[in-house]
């Protein structure tokens, strides 16, 4: 079957969708940057699913992905999470600062991770960044963010909605309005030199279809705006 | 008094000795190769534990397997000059010598340095010493600790006759001055005759003879004991 290189944050949903399809597919998960570099070095991928448009653009620049085949597959939203039982949060600078007094705010490093960049943009446009900045601890990725909140190391964390869904020990205390940051798009495209392009195309068609969308929605993803 | 009763098996070899002798003077220990002399020393010094036995020196019980007494080697006050020297390789000769020195015995160091001709070797490392030089340092090191009882395992075998003579004199002198009892292993009957007041001869792990002078030269197959436990056994 075809080999997909996919952003790690989609693992749970993508595995479920593939199971739904009944197709014989192998998926290699990793950080978008890591798998993009592997494709650059000749990894035998048939499809590339990136959480970060920058890395898709990188492969397009290298000629490994045809620009006109790139399409948005999924989108995501951001949420603020807190340890379970912490109670709802007023999205004001004062309330945030109060909750973070002597506490930590965790979010993936906004200088490196896409989720951090989106989160930084959102908090800035909402006028909340100043309130959280003194307590900010940059983590490696959303997994580490969730773990820190679940373990009570941090009073607040910012992750994708899909990361927080159904996780023990954390609760969503605020849904960040999608308008406050650039759209979060998961781009997908066939890779040049694929060994099984037909099957890859068939899988892609399935992933676009409603059956798969239902599965994705169950894991907190939304269909990408502008997707067919 | 030194009372000793031991049983120890190593592979096919069994050491089984018992004696009770006055604690003074120099005791010679002879016997063919492999007869158990070094093993007896290990048990005395506490480096090996016998399967069964009792060792008491001057009323102090060092070991009693039945009463589960086993004094630590450092507490036994038993010095030992090893068959192969065993100088500390990371220390100079001087530090080897003073390692076990009691406080306030600078005279002893000076005396030993002179008699054993160690002055030119003082700052050297053991690795650069010749076989005989190493053995001289080992003797000096053991004497510096002024032990209650000194065990010497063929201490002179690597020495030339002239130094051998000198060290024999030194041992006699140390003994006269300090009264330190010694047990002395040697294959040279003339050394034993010269030093020891009493001589124990071992053969295949058993006492073959205890007398005032070396047993008649043991034959190629070792001594055949006269059968029956001699009267001096404990």
């Amino acid at each position, binding site marked *: 079957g075809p080999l997909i290189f996919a952003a790690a944050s989609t693992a749970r949903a993508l595995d479920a969708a593939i199971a739904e399809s009944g197709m014989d597919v*192998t998926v290699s998960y*990793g950080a978008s940057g*890591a798998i993009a570099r592997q494709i650059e*070095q*000749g990894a035998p991928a048939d499809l590339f699913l990136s959480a970060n448009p920058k890395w898709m653009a990188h492969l397009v620049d290298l000629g490994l992905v045809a620009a006109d085949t790139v399409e948005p597959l999924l989108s995501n939203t951001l949420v603020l999470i807190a340890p379970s039982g912490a109670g709802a949060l007023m999205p004001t600078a004062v309330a945030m600062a109060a909750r973070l007094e002597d506490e930590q705010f965790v979010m993936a490093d906004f200088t490196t991770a896409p989720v951090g960049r989106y989160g930084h943009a959102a908090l800035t446009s909402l006028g909340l960044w100043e309130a959280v900045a003194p307590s900010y601890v940059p983590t490696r990725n959303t*997994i580490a963010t969730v773990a820190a909140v679940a373990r009570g190391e941090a009073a607040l964390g910012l992750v994708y909605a899909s990361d927080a869904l159904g996780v023990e020990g954390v609760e969503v205390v605020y849904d960040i309005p999608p308008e406050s940051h650039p759209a979060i798009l998961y781009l997908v495209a066939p890779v040049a030199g694929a060994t099984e392009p037909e099957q890859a195309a068939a899988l892609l068609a399935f992933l676009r279809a409603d059956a798969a969308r239902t599965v994705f929605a169950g894991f907190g993803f939304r269909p990408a705006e502008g997707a067919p | 008094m030194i009372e000793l009763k031991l049983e120890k098996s190593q592979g096919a070899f069994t050491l089984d000795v018992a004696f009770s002798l006055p604690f003074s003077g120099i005791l010679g220990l002879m016997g063919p190769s492999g007869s158990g002399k070094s093993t007896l020393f290990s048990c005395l010094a506490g480096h090996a534990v016998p399967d069964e036995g009792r060792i008491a020196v001057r009323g102090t019980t060092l070991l009693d397997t039945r009463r589960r007494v086993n004094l630590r080697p450092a507490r036994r006050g038993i010095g030992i000059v090893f068959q192969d020297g065993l100088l500390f390789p990371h220390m100079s000769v001087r530090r080897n010598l003073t390692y076990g020195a009691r406080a306030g015995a600078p005279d002893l160091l000076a005396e030993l340095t002179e008699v054993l001709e160690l002055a030119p070797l003082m700052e050297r490392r053991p690795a650069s010493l010749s076989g005989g030089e190493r053995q001289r340092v080992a003797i000096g090191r053991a004497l510096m600790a002024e032990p209650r009882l000194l065990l010497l395992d063929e201490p002179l075998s690597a020495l030339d006759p002239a130094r051998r003579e000198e060290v024999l004199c030194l041992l006699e002198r140390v003994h006269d001055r300090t009264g330190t009892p010694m047990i002395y292993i040697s294959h040279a009957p003339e050394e034993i005759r010269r030093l020891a007041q009493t001589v124990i001869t071992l053969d295949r792990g058993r006492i073959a003879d205890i007398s005032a002078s070396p047993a008649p030269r043991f034959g190629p197959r070792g001594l055949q004991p006269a059968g029956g436990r001699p009267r001096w056994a404990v």
Partner: protein
Amino acid sequence: MTPPLGLSVMEWQALTLSLRSATLAVLWSLPLAIGLGWLLARRRFPGHWLLNAVVHLPLVLPPVVIGYLLLVLLGREGVIGAPLHALFGVRLAFSTQAVVIACAVVSFPLLVRAIRQSAESMDHRFEAAARSLGAGELRVFLTVTLPLMSPGILTGLTLGFARAVGEFGATITLAANIPGKTQTLPLALFSVTQSPGGDAAAARLCALSLALAGMALIGSELVSRRMTWEAAR
């Protein structure tokens, strides 16, 4: 065919791949490690410090960086990868062999150091004795040097194997995380922890890693106890 021990197919594949790769990794690098360990211990030559530094390189760099450097070297356009591909059609990166290579490289310094240490602590007069009995250099090495170094070699193998079993960063970079092909136990562990609620599966994979390395540890203890001459010396 269902895997034994109640494992899932993915877990079983990861287990066998880890076992195979770690074993091959240490065995393949052993001869070179013995040579270098001996050389670093017993010879002084102009480039000594440099060689020593190069040997330690994989220890100092984060595994992901090592993986990346290996990818640059062995990839399709790499200095070594390009000719290999052109001449033999071999593609190392993202293959099962890539896993072995990644494991071998990261565990290499541990092998060399342990072997070097034993070569340094052995008394080389034994070799002189063997020579005086007429043994040529090769025979001396095989019958005296090597056996006397064997406790160090065993330590090196054990350390290297354990490190190889735990190897993650270089493997995922050089070989990618392809289930059934390059997904070792740590990579499978990574995959299950990438989604919330994978804790039970993660714990099981951890336990498998530990069991694998634990068996190697116990095995090496048993072997080393049979080297009784060492303790009794």
